[in-house]
């Protein structure tokens, strides 16, 4: 969004016809179904016979569903936090090493993207299970006496999502990190700033646009990661995507599913907008 606005300022005249193919496709295959979705949400009953706000009031009047929204947002925030904490050190390392090592690192970072999300998720079951790699190691080392329960917990899900979503955070961050002027970092150090001060006052503000892009991608895909949430999270952790699937496919309550879908859309959008606002704030401040 911010990129499009910037491009508009550079050229004298924008040829909107260039956007026509994608624009029309979006209109036909996104805007129209979206209107239908919105329409369905205003049916009061599962059989779609009468109009009313019942589905909306049922969803927003129930503490359980409000908690589902909150849990979904929380999962997104956790995934962004964890990927950020792991991605920044790696990005700094990437910047410091030579081109050959960079190519190896890029390959390692991209590798998870080359396998299907289903495979990656099932791999995590093998790793986190009671008799999985983590527990076997902990037991063998005598760190724990009984196997830890990692599957079907929020912690296990965040661990798995962190690995699964990591490339989405790293790729934009690496690009920005590589474009950053080394002279600014050197100047900061030469003027007596400590390594930490340089990081927080120079590197972090300069790389923030890359982080915002990465955080947006991680947030959006972690909150909507249906497969990982249902397979690793299990039935005790209910998030919006699983709720939508259940209401539309098993219960056939499409109005209620529509309300949940729109809620997911708007909460994710709100999260993205908050990140965008953060990015703008950083550049002007």
């Amino acid at each position: 969004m911010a990129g499009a606005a910037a491009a508009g300022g550079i050229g004298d005249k924008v040829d909107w016809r260039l956007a026509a193919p994608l624009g029309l496709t979006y209109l036909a295959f996104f805007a129209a179904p979206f209107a239908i979705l919105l329409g369905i949400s205003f049916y009061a009953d599962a059989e779609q016979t009468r109009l009313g706000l019942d589905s909306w009031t049922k969803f927003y009047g129930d503490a359980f569903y409000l908690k589902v929204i909150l849990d979904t947002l929380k999962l997104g925030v956790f995934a962004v936090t964890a990927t950020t904490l792991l991605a920044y050190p790696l990005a700094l390392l990437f910047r410091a090493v030579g081109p050959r090592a960079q190519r190896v690192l890029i390959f390692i970072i991209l590798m998870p993207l080359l396998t299907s999300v289903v495979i990656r998720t099932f791999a995590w079951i093998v790793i986190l299970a009671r008799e999985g790699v983590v527990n076997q190691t902990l037991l063998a080392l005598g760190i724990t006496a009984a196997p830890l329960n990692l599957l079907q917990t929020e912690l296990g899900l965040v661990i798995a999502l962190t690995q699964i979503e990591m490339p989405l955070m790293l790729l934009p961050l690496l690009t920005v990190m590589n474009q950053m002027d080394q002279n600014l970092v050197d100047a900061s150090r030469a003027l007596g700033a400590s390594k930490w001060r340089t990081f927080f006052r120079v590197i972090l503000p300069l790389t923030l646009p890359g982080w915002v892009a990465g955080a947006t991608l991680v947030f959006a895909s972690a909150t909507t990661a249906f497969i990982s949430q249902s397979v690793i999270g299990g039935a005790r952790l209910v998030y919006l995507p699983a709720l939508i699937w259940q209401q539309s496919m098993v219960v056939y309550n499409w109005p209620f599913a529509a309300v949940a879908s729109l809620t997911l859309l708007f909460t994710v959008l709100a999260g993205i907008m908050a990140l965008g606002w953060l990015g703008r704030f950083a550049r002007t401040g």
Partner: protein
Amino acid sequence: MTVTTRREFLAGAAALGFASALPSRASAAGSLTAAIYPGTWEEAYRGVLAPALKKSADIDVAFDSLFAVDQVAKVRAARGVPPFDCFVLDPGPAASAMQAGLFEPIDASKLTNATKVPAGLITSHAVTCNAQVVGIAYNPKKFATPPKSWADLFKSPYVERLGLTGFQTTFGTVSIIEMAKVFGGSETNVEPVFAELKKAVEKAAAVAAPAAMPGLFQQGQIDVMYTNTNTVATLKGRGVSIEFVQPETGAITFQTTLHIVKGADNVASAYKYMDMAISAEVQSALQKQPYNMIPINKDVQLVETLDIKSVDELTKMVTHDWTKINPQRAAWIERFNKEITK
């Protein structure tokens, strides 16, 4: 010497491509698209039924792999333009699809194998293709004595190793109903079991999606679950230590049925497809490893790996009326969501 331009070459290549594609389509007497459950069912129908149908009636089958609930949702969403010709459904989704008017009526006289099937298995809108038997599965290496009843699942040492799943599948729903009966409930009253579930869930090894259960069992995350004989035989075939137990109050049985989708394009082929599915040839192949499906054709000699002795045994098992269950299921699912979550 003739010079071939790039354009002519491409046209020729395209024509060749078409020519090679044509004969295979033109020679088939018919074709259809059938929905099929992902996993064992898809392997079975792709590997056994499709070649048999091609050989006997020269019909090509394309499969659309979808769970029962997804099939019904897809046909409902298509609003009169069916995405496939044939359903394969469990009783719950079949009852709701029937109610929504998504089936064409069945004319049993068009099925040559209709007489080989016990009475009642071919109805006005459904052709039963296999039976499923649901009970308790456990890991014999982890317990000295096997669990005997549904109530045992809520007691130590079984509850600590139990994998729980809710009402979103047919086997999950009927299993929980049977547990409710043990604690004083009935087919329409699962109230008593919720109190027990609430206690059990704190101790249980896992509460997970139904599709994740076999994987969790294989990984040793759980050692007791409620499931069908089909899954038990498949896991056993993969070397997993697992045994099936019929609970004291009886194992549960329900039928998997084939239906013609309302407004289907290939009705004649769909009849041939269903007829082949209930034939002795296909049914006896599908009861073996790795498919393990319980046959309903009376001519089929049952193999040992199935955990049941005869087709007649099925008639003594517990069955359920889904027209009574379906209206309550949404509320049960919601309740399970709310009370079992953390």
